[in-house]
């Protein structure tokens, strides 16, 4: 294994590309770049950093994404198509099991709910034109046939491109394999300043003004920690915190082989119940009223969940943009500095690692992805 450098003792070193952020976004880039032969360093904060990657629900999700932005719908679909190969490559290299499997349901509690979902999906289909994916609408009786344990709900939409994985193993696999490929992982090292160098490239410094490294190019992928760094590089990053809470139950025999946006059974048997959304800033604590709502909603779908012991619950903070779509940007004033932000770190990991890493090497985001530029918010504001 390549030597890993721990903590702030690591010497100042130059590299091709520095990635700021060691979560799912940063690690996907770090791995993707190392895999393409780039000498890169990945900077990460400490053990208790607000870490969206560790609070993840683990969905590789397509259904319903990109309503109002066909580019995002197509990007999510591409991610789903790349995911199997992406997982296979990581599993072969690391020996870890990412537990990726496919087939996802979005449950609808009422008829109106089901109708609204179907309308949204049809709208997305028409936006995606020839690349559109298919989905199935399951009324209650059809759903009950497929899932005998389902409760008294109106139905669901099913999409074969949706899936789930073990997001913790995904993060570990990316960390493990990017280091095998020669990337340097630098935990407990918070980058605070970016300075352009006279002859091109950038220097990174920590809060004490200590030099951390010099790099030709930078990828800012530090989630909520990205904002201040992006500003220094002339990049606008309109993101806010969106809190989600998740309940984990005890391990039980397999009872739900698909996945869904609010309930999934993990490969080790626990059920994850989730999908709350609260605007409470950077607060990762759980609260009983939110957990009660999640429990009631999920028990309506599967009444047997009521019997299960709750093992634990957690809160995590999503990186949310004003319209929920990704924000990708290449700095005009600091060429070679890229910033990526999105809330679908697991789904898009395949795209970031296998596609977007090449953009950084090439030095430009393809014009086909202009929709992801934050200038879209100015257009809306001026209307």
């Amino acid at each position, binding site marked *: 294994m390549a030597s890993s450098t721990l903590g702030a003792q690591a010497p100042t070193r130059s590299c091709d590309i520095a990635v700021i952020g060691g979560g799912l976004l940063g690690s996907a880039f770090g791995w993707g770049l190392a895999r393409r032969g780039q000498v890169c360093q990945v900077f990460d904060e400490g053990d208790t950093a607000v870490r969206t990657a560790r609070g993840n629900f683990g969905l590789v999700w397509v259904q319903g994404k990109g309503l109002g932005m066909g580019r995002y719908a197509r990007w999510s679909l591409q991610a789903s198509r790349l995911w199997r190969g992406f997982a296979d490559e990581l599993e072969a290299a690391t020996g870890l099991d990412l537990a990726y499997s496919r087939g996802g349901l979005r449950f609808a509690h009422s008829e109106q709910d089901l109708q609204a979902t179907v309308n949204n999906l049809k709208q997305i289909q028409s936006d995606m034109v020839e690349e559109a994916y298919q989905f199935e609408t399951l009324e209650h009786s059809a759903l009950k046939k497929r899932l005998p344990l389902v409760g008294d709900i109106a139905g669901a939409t099913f999409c074969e491109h949706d899936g789930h994985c073990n997001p913790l193993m995904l993060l570990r696999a990316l960390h493990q394999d990017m280091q095998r490929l020669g990337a340097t992982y630098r935990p407990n090292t918070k980058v605070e300043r970016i300075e352009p160098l006279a002859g091109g490239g950038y220097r990174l410094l920590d809060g004490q003004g200590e030099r951390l490294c010099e790099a030709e190019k930078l990828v800012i992928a530090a989630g909520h920690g990205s904002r201040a760094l992006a500003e220094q590089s002339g990049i606008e990053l309109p993101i806010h915190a969106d809190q989600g809470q998740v309940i984990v139950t005890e391990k039980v025999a397999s009872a739900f082989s698909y996945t869904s946006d609010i309930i999934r059974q993990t490969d080790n048997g626990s059920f994850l119940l989730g999908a709350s959304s609260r605007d409470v800033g950077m607060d990762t604590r759980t609260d009983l009223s939110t957990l009660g709502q999640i*429990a009631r909603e999920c028990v309506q779908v599967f009444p047997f969940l*009521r019997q299960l012991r*709750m093992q634990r619950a*957690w809160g995590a903070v999503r990186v949310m943009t004003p319209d929920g779509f990704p924000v990708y940007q290449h700095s005009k004033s600091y060429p070679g500095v890229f910033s990526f932000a999105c809330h679908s770190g697991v789904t898009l990991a395949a795209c970031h690692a296998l596609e977007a890493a090449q953009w950084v090497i090439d030095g430009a985001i393809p014009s086909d992805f202009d929709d992801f530029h934050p200038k879209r918010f100015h257009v809306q504001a001026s209307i």
Partner: protein
Amino acid sequence: MIHKVDIAIIGAGPAGMSLAQSLVSGDEKTRPPSVAVIDEQKDGGGQVYRAALRQAPDLASVLGQEYQSARPWLQEASQNPDIQFYFRTSAWNIEPREDGVELALVSAGRNWRLRAKRLVLASGAMERPTPFSGWQTPGVMTMGAAQTLMKDAGLVPDQPLVLLGSGPLLYLFAKQLLQSGVSIQAVLHTGPRGLRAAAWAAFWAALPGNFSPLGKGLLWRMQLALARVPQVFNVAEVVAQPDPQDTAGGLGALRYRVGGHWHTLQTGLVLVHDGVVPNTHLAAACGCSLTWDQQQACWRPELDETGRSSQSQIWALGDGARIMGSEAARWQGVAMAPALLESLGYQPSAANLARCQEAQRRLAPLQRLRRFLDAQFPPAGAFSEISDDTQVCRCEAISAGEIRRIAGLGCSGVNQARSFTRVGMGPCMGRQCGASVAKVLAGAQGKPQSALGYFTVRLPLKPVTVGDLCALEADAPASG
């Protein structure tokens, strides 16, 4: 309906009981604050005086004079009509609020909520984990658990056994076992025969005011020697081996190393102990800052001189705040009352202030005694150098070797280790393995253990069902 009180105390051991009693026995002219005491057991006393209120006389005499002497004051506090007691009750969630805290509780299967302006954590100590190769083998048990069985059910082992480890409890429990007629095959001490060089100064400093506890310790040692129990000192490494003839995989032998030599001892039962550490699970769950105690090698809540944590509405005392022993815990309860009352706008009575002063005076020699015990019984090396095949997390069966592998990936602390390996994700929620994981990571990365942090505590603190979550509203059961 949500039940409301001024002060909620979690833990009805010596600290919680004496605090509750002091809070309500002030000046008779003013109405006392409403005080609720919550505990998982069926009556007061905590682990140390477990079942003292209902103990059979012959067993009580085995358990000792100090155990028996707690009975009158525990009784008096238990019968105080101004204290609301909720026994057989677990707090499974604590939400700090601006004006206090809200607890989610479960009493005999019933869920209810309690709001308090102040929460006092008197959650006591837990045994320091003693990881060694094979410690998950049936037949390896902690001394604390064995002593609980003795106090609760009068059960003593009916087979010859081995004691392993160090600490005052080892000597006390050996005495209690001998008195109960149990055959002790051997005592394997992880420490030296006499006083450690580092403990002599603390011993002389502790002597004034502590003749009685130090004399008792000496007596227990002599009793052990007189009973001609074989004793081995400076045990540096231990391996538990299952009995090849036993289909259930029970313990067959202990292998242990003294200096460069390995020895084998055939036995079916070994009781292990390496001292106690504060149970900080609740404090961490409340978001109280913890601080690393270098002297006792453990985490404890960061408190000001009155016992207030970094969350101003949450206070802590007793062994859950710092290991000081049961007598100190009792005096700490008396000492805390005036400041806690004042924080709620009560004028502490002259009687309360006088008792507080007396408590402070009583605590001074106990602090000197503790410095001696800390110096004489540091955490044992036999449980510190954790071999690769030792299971550090028994819930998820994660070995120290696995933790060392991820340490090489630059794992920045115990929480990253948890997400990478599932260590600490099992039913004990990392209470048992947190310190061991940090120790292994620290060793592999050449850092101090305190730099690796402690597990973020997740809800629920006690098992509840998804159905319980669905229906949270419920009335408080009648106290008592």
